[in-house]
């Protein structure tokens, strides 16, 4: 497999004006030279191969978009080296643009007033796609999703889901080697989400396109990514397979119980009894995240049963969501 993206010790710093409070402060700010340096990305390295789907995760403001902007060439790294398709992106932005596709959720590169098909034709000419390739791609799209009803609709009349779908189709149209998807499923309903996941999966399989996906939706990650990279506060926390991550947290199980009485109040009592574990409650279940290296689940269950009557119980493997949450909160040791 060939490498398409190589990032070596990349950092990005921004100079930000220190803003003061109030009207007086705002006036002072007009003349202020008081800048502070904010490190958005701090010493990140990774290598991504052709055909991979990489989930790029992190809480809001972690530096995900900054990294993507550096990979696309819109931002120049403060230090370190990025090579995309054998080129330095910020020096060859226009050239690089021909071989990548981007979707920034909630932003559209389509022509607002034009029917989708006109946008596609325009992109065909702008990217210099040959008639055969274009037809090929359209046929493939047709086989994957039912595009006929949206093809002749002006983009401004589309629903958010249709527009996102269109934007993704537009980003893949020139068969780029890499596609960056920045929160593509944000704000979409369940069926549209799954439609879009299936589409991305199929495109990746068929065209061997590398996909870099940032998202907050763990459903996206579970459905698409074999590898995930997690960053927080600009620093890389994790870069490995999903499987590996699950093994790492493999000793964790979620024990869900339902007891008599008010669940919230009961959860608090249980929380005190089992102070070493995390206990939460919702309308139906009390969930206890048990680390089996410390205590067996059966043990915990036994202790719970002594004090109260358990009406129902469930045992769950830890979900990706919980894993990520644990990493955000505690990091990987």
């Amino acid at each position, binding site marked *: 497999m060939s490498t398409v993206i190589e990032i070596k010790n990349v950092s990005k710093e*921004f100079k930000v004006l220190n803003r003061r409070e109030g009207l007086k402060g705002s006036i002072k700010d007009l003349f202020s030279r008081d800048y502070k340096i904010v490190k958005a990305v701090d010493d990140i390295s990774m290598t991504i191969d052709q055909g991979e789907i990489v989930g790029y995760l992190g809480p809001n403001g972690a530096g995900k978009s900054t990294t993507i*902007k550096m990979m696309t060439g819109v931002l120049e790294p403060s230090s370190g080296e990025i090579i995309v398709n054998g080129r330095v992106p910020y020096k060859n932005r*226009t050239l690089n*643009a021909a071989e*990548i596709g981007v979707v920034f959720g909630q932003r559209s590169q389509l022509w607002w007033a034009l029917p989708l098909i*006109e946008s596609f034709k325009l992109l065909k000419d702008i990217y210099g796609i040959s008639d055969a390739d274009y037809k090929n791609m359209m046929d493939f799209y047709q086989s994957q999703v039912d595009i006929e009803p949206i093809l002749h609709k002006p983009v401004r009349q589309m629903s958010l889901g249709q527009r996102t779908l269109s934007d993704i189709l537009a980003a893949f149209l020139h068969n780029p080697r890499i596609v960056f998807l920045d929160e593509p499923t944000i704000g979409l309903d369940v069926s549209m989400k799954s439609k879009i996941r299936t589409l991305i999966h199929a495109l990746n399989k068929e065209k061997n396109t590398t996909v870099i996906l940032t998202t907050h939706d763990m459903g996206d990650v579970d459905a698409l990514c074999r590898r995930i990279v997690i960053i927080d506060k600009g620093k890389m926390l994790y870069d490995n397979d999903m499987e590996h991550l699950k093994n790492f947290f493999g000793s964790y199980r979620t024990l869900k119980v339902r007891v008599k009485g008010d669940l919230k109040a009961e959860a608090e009592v249980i929380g005190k009894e089992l102070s070493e574990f995390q206990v939460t409650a919702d309308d139906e279940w009390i969930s206890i995240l048990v680390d089996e290296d410390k205590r067996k689940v059966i043990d915990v269950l036994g202790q719970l049963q002594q004090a109260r009557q358990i009406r129902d119980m469930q045992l769950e493997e830890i979900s990706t969501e919980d894993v990520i949450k644990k990493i955000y909160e505690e990091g990987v040791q």
Partner: protein
Amino acid sequence: MNLKRRLSLTRAGIIESLQFRLSMLIIFVGNLLYLIVIYFLWKAIYASSGQEVVNGMTFSDTLIYLVLASAIFNFIEMYTVWEMGRAIQSGNMVLNLLKPMEYRKYLFWSFSGTFVTQFFFTFLPTFIIVAIVTNGAIQFGFNLLYFVISIVMAIVINYNIDFFVGTICLYTESIWGINIMKQVLVLLLSGATVPIAFFPETFKKIVYCLPFQSIYNAPLSLLLGKDMPVSEAMTTLGIQLLWCVVMMILSRLFWKSSLKQITVNGG
């Protein structure tokens, strides 16, 4: 292939502008109102001066000039500053920068469709009406050829000035004030609101040293000038060409260096 890319943008622009039927009607009506205002304004000016000819122009000369100037305005004005400012504020600029085409060219060709529709829907009808109504005030000869060449260069100069001003929005992040200031300055200094013949002598000299008069004054004087000697026409076109090149280089350099600023500091 490069040409195909550009013409494809033109084509999309034409389709896009035809989508907004109502807006075209409103432009037409707005233009009509403007023309009525200037008719009475200048009628009053001539009446109060008590002379037939003011600064070498008769009332009908002035009116023809201003009517055509407003027709040209509707046709070549493309609100570049507005468009750029909006893209900068909303952050959509990122997507524009990720097109495999230089942004300055991409934007120009995206607008080019509007030239075509506006030319046929506003400029040409106005021109024909003026030609018929004034019966002979506009000559039909080489001046039409000069005018066409001149107006193409006017478009290029106007676009590059706009693009230059639009780039300033990268720094200020505000659009409104800059846009208004630019509009007023350009329209005044180019002779679109008041014919340059009416300017005081020293001011006139300064204005002739600036690029703006190449946008409205140059094509209009080539069109309306009676029996203009070839040498004079060539000088006007030559000056325009010079400004074309200068403004293209300036706007390009300014954009490049500003872009460098963004890629370093983020936008």
